[in-house]
């Protein structure tokens, strides 16, 4: 996932292209992009990655989006963080928090506490937890011996 952690003042971004972690002050982020008729308020454009130059766009959930089909999944948690970030930025910019195409508030505090009891950060995925720790990792040896994974 790309938003690794969200604090009161900054966002920690894990670049999906190169894996670099970028700490982005919230004060430098803006809601929406484009001008005039092309103005789109549902997007938060992050600065290009300092390592690889990739540009990430965080997308607020659209109007009428049904509940996430897999509550608690990484996709659902990331969706909550993005919507929360979007809401905070929109309110900070003075948005009215409603209406099609206009800024809307993010998920409630109660919902955030439920899914992020330890703070607004993405938990390490189970797959990441299973990543080998080094060349001597038992799983790597098992894979090399044809006894693991595949």
């Amino acid at each position, binding site marked *: *996932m*790309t*938003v690794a952690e969200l604090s009161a003042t900054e966002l920690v971004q894990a*670049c*999906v*292209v190169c894996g670099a972690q970028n700490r982005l002050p919230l004060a430098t982020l803006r809601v929406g*992009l*484009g001008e005039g008729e*092309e103005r*789109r308020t*549902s*997007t938060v*454009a992050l600065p*290009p990655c300092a390592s*690889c*130059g*990739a*540009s*990430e*766009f*965080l*997308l607020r*959930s*659209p109007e009428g*989006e*049904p509940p*996430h*089909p*897999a509550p608690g*999944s*990484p*996709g*659902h948690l*990331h*969706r909550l*963080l*993005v*919507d929360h970030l979007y809401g905070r930025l929109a309110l900070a910019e003075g948005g009215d928090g409603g209406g099609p195409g206009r800024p809307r508030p993010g998920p409630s505090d109660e919902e955030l506490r439920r899914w992020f009891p330890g703070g607004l950060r993405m938990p390490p*995925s*189970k*797959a990441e937890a*299973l990543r080998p720790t080094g060349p001597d990792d038992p*799983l790597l040896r*098992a894979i090399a011996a044809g*006894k*693991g*994974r*595949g």
Partner: protein
Amino acid sequence: MADRVDYYFRQKVTEAELDLGFELLERADRNLAADIGLFGIVSGAVPAPHSPLPGLSVDLTAPARAYDRAGQRVFFGTGQTVDCSVDHNGLPTEVTAAGNERWLSVFLRFSRSLSDPRTDGNSQQVLFRRDESFELVVRQGPEAPAGSAPRPLLEEAELLVCDVRRTAGQTQIVGTDLDLTRRQAFVFAPAGAVLVVAGLWKALATTASTVQQALDSADALLAQQGGRLGAHLEAAAGAHAASAVAVADAGGLLNAAHVEGALAEILGAFGAGHVRANEGANAGLHRAIRQPVLGAGRVLLFESGVTGANETRLRAYGDDGSVWVTFNAAWNGAAWARDTASFYAGGFRFARHEFAFLHDDLLAPAFADFAKQWTLRMNAEVNSGFETSGAVREVGRLGLHTRNPTLAVANATAGGAVTFRSRFPATPSSITLAPKASFKLPTPSVFEADRDGFGVFAHASLTADAVAYWHGTYTAVA
């Protein structure tokens, strides 16, 4: 009764006359024994190797009773040991040549034991008591190659107890050296002299009038029946109707009570699912596999160990909506359990309205559902591609190209749309664009994203007839 003499008044009885009286009585006694066929060893005198240490002697059991052909009684009350190393003449019985043998015969013979010496009127010494006694006589036959040595002839005045085989170098007479086949044992009455009443017999010949004839008839009948039984047991066909052979069915597995019915029952059940041997080629192979209702919930339809590797253990399940085919995943009633936690689990599921590929790479021993799934919803409004679920990340290509067709500096705009390969479970929350090659066109902006794709646009201020482009990749996360 006996012949007798009539001693008379004032007869001066001589020794000979007194002896005659006893002689007549004794003769009558012996005639009675001979007349009724009382001949042979009645009991005892059973030979055995000498004990406790076998040697060249034979022990005879006691008491022993026998009568010779003259009706004379032979008796001994204590066990006897017969020395077989020499015969009754004192000649050695040993076998000198290897591979040869010699037969000895042990006989029992009547004799008298004289005792109680007296002096008669002629001043001669006489023995007053003449008690009945016995003698054991060892006779030997000639030495000859094994199997051809003749046995000593039977003696008219003696009773054969047993034959004894001597071999070269023999130091012990053992049980197998003793042969009782010629033993002259007492026969109470010949079977041919005992009458039978055959009137009600069903199987034996009713013409038999003696025990011997009855036994002969029984023997012939048994031989006949034995022959029939042997032929019956060896007959290749029609030996015994299977419908007449009961089955015990100790396990309570059959409905049939006899072999014919049991075979029909078993082959009927087997033939319903397999080709029988009498149906030609492909005997034993499966026909279509048909199954009854197997239970409720998610039930196992098929399982195979394949090559023995747990990671490819193959199973098929069915439930109310779908059929599941899995590798390394067994349904335990509440969750999928891995056969081996070191390997991924996978499979596919198909139903009347959708088809899904399944994959679980989290290596937990058990899991409620597969972590990643690709589902083709055949009856959905959008049904042209797979929908993904789980941790989904798609990387694809994106490119924009534009040109300023005017003769002056102008703003050029390029835009387009990207369609995901698969339908996401929800609108992506992040799309990242990474350049591969670009010229004068900045990184495009993303807009109008949904489960199926997103739009992009970019602006650039270009000089007259200038070209701008941006080519790169997108990474969408949902």
